[in-house]
């Protein structure tokens, strides 16, 4: 009897870790994706999120397949309204470091939060695989990454010129430049542009640099990402064109000042190849 009990306990002890591991590996069923990158990646992997975050600058970058999925408004630095989020009863939230304060609060509610917003193209590949592993769609994630790499390579084919590009964030006379470790900076570099950075680096991926450097490094192209609407493009272009500090740059003299009002250069997405093609065709002409 004692031996039988001991054997039963031993069997139970052996089974417990396996069942616990199985429980841990069970893919989350109710996922909220606060970034367009996570939302679109999930959809491409065949997983429909139960909620998506509002996209900065409009929702046109979200996959049409998430139409009908509740969209959560986001505010800085808290992210979504916690009551709205809790009402969706998520197992997992894919968030961004932009909502750092909100991520802590979500954790306090017992919601598992993973920060998945790449700031470089290589990060997008790696994080696609991470998301695939989490939702137990590894093979599809691997195939998706391979497809992304192939289409990016096609989009980069035949780059004929490498103009110096000043990519700026915001409006006003104190704009911040995108650095190579920002999404937009990496996309422009992949599209063949040479980013004007003044040699600075910053963990945030953005920095305010001196106009003296702009004059000295003489950008061929200026692209502004101003958080504005389509209607504002002509007036913003004129405003930048008439900035006395930049009047002697090649970009101003040759009329190569562009305003990007969608957020394809601001936030990571899965439409990388399309964005690179657009940057080459519209802005860099290479």
């Amino acid at each position: 009897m004692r031996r039988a009990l001991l054997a039963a306990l031993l069997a139970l002890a052996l089974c417990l870790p396996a069942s616990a591991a199985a429980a841990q590996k069970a893919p989350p069923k109710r996922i909220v994706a606060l970034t367009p990158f996570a939302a679109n990646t999930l959809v491409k992997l065949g997983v429909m999120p139960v909620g998506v975050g509002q996209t900065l600058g409009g929702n046109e970058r979200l996959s049409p397949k998430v139409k009908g999925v509740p969209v959560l408004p986001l505010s800085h630095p808290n992210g979504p309204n916690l009551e709205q989020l809790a009402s969706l009863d998520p197992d997992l939230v894919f968030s961004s470091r932009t909502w750092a304060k909100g991520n802590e609060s979500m954790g306090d509610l017992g919601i598992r939060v993973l920060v998945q917003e790449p700031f470089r193209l290589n990060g997008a590949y790696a994080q696609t695989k991470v998301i695939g592993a989490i939702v137990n769609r590894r093979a599809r994630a691997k195939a998706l990454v391979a497809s992304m790499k192939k289409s990016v390579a096609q989009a980069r084919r035949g780059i004929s010129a490498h103009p110096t590009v000043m990519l700026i964030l915001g409006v006003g006379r104190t704009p911040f430049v995108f650095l190579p470790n920002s999404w937009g900076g990496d996309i422009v570099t992949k599209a063949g542009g040479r980013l004007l950075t003044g040699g600075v680096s910053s963990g945030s991926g953005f920095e305010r640099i001196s106009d003296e450097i702009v004059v000295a490094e003489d950008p061929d192209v200026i692209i502004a990402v101003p958080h504005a609407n389509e209607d504002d493009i002509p007036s913003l272009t004129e405003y930048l064109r008439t900035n006395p500090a930049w009047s002697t740059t090649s970009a101003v003299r040759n009329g190569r000042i562009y305003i990007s009002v969608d957020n394809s250069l601001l936030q990571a997405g899965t439409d990388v190849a399309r964005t690179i093609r657009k940057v080459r065709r519209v802005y860099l002409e290479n």
Partner: protein
Amino acid sequence: MARRTLVFAGLLAALALAVVASLALGAVKVPFAEVIEIVFGKGGSGPNQQIIETLRLPRTAEAMVVGAALGIAGAILQGALGNPLASPDVIGVTGGAGFGAILIIILFPGSIALLPLGALFFGLLAAALVFAVAWSGHNRGSTGKVILAGIAILSLFTAGTTGLLAAYPERAPSAIFFIAGGLTSSGWDELGTIWPYFAAGFVCAALLIRPLDRLALGDDVAASLGSRPHLIRLGAAIAAALLAAASAAIAGLLGFLGLVVPHVVRMAGGTSSNTFVVPASALGGAALLAAGDTLARTLRAPIEMPVGPFMVLLGVPLFLWLLRKVV
């Protein structure tokens, strides 16, 4: 008298040094001899000429004008209200200008060229509201009423600014530099648009120097000498509003300068006479802002930082040293 002369000479020397540093230093190294040649129109070409003529010269001029304006605004407000804590914040100008600028940045980014005028308009509107409240009803024009009305209007506009920033968080980065205070390299455009407001403010302030000295004797004594205390106070507040709103339109929110510089020159000169304090505050403010802006541009060059923290860094140690020594 010798002490005042010495302080005045010291301030002039500090201003000269700050101006030379502002013209000679920047993110791009330009040989000093070439800077001199370009400034005096005797040579220079290419990017270096563009950097000195279009970027550094107007920026140095803006630093001098804005610094002088804020120094004078603080000096005449402290004199008129008889309150050492008075500054352009107290009459609501800073709050109003901040709201006007953020309104354009956040809601009307396509009209960003109107930012200086937006800041100027709302800065003056805020001051007008303060005057309307403070110069009506009982105790009209009293110091307490002006200060309380100013605090209320300041809170109103600050709430509006905070609300806009919270409603459009993704647009907030563009507003950071304005809120933190800083000069930009906009050539002569902004100064060219705003100068009449500076000129009106400077003229009003100059005309008020002697009346303010009479007001310092007390309302009753000033009245017995033929002055009209309420009118002097209103004139000083209008001049300060013009100077502070015009400053905010160009350099954002730099409240610290208007508060501290008049105290520093008062303590250094050992007198509260406005004949000395007002012009000395102009020199001190101009020197402090020109020096602070040079530091903000060069310390982490080519990264540019807001000038506000640098002015605090330069001004506070001097202020605390004088406070310990004199008071």
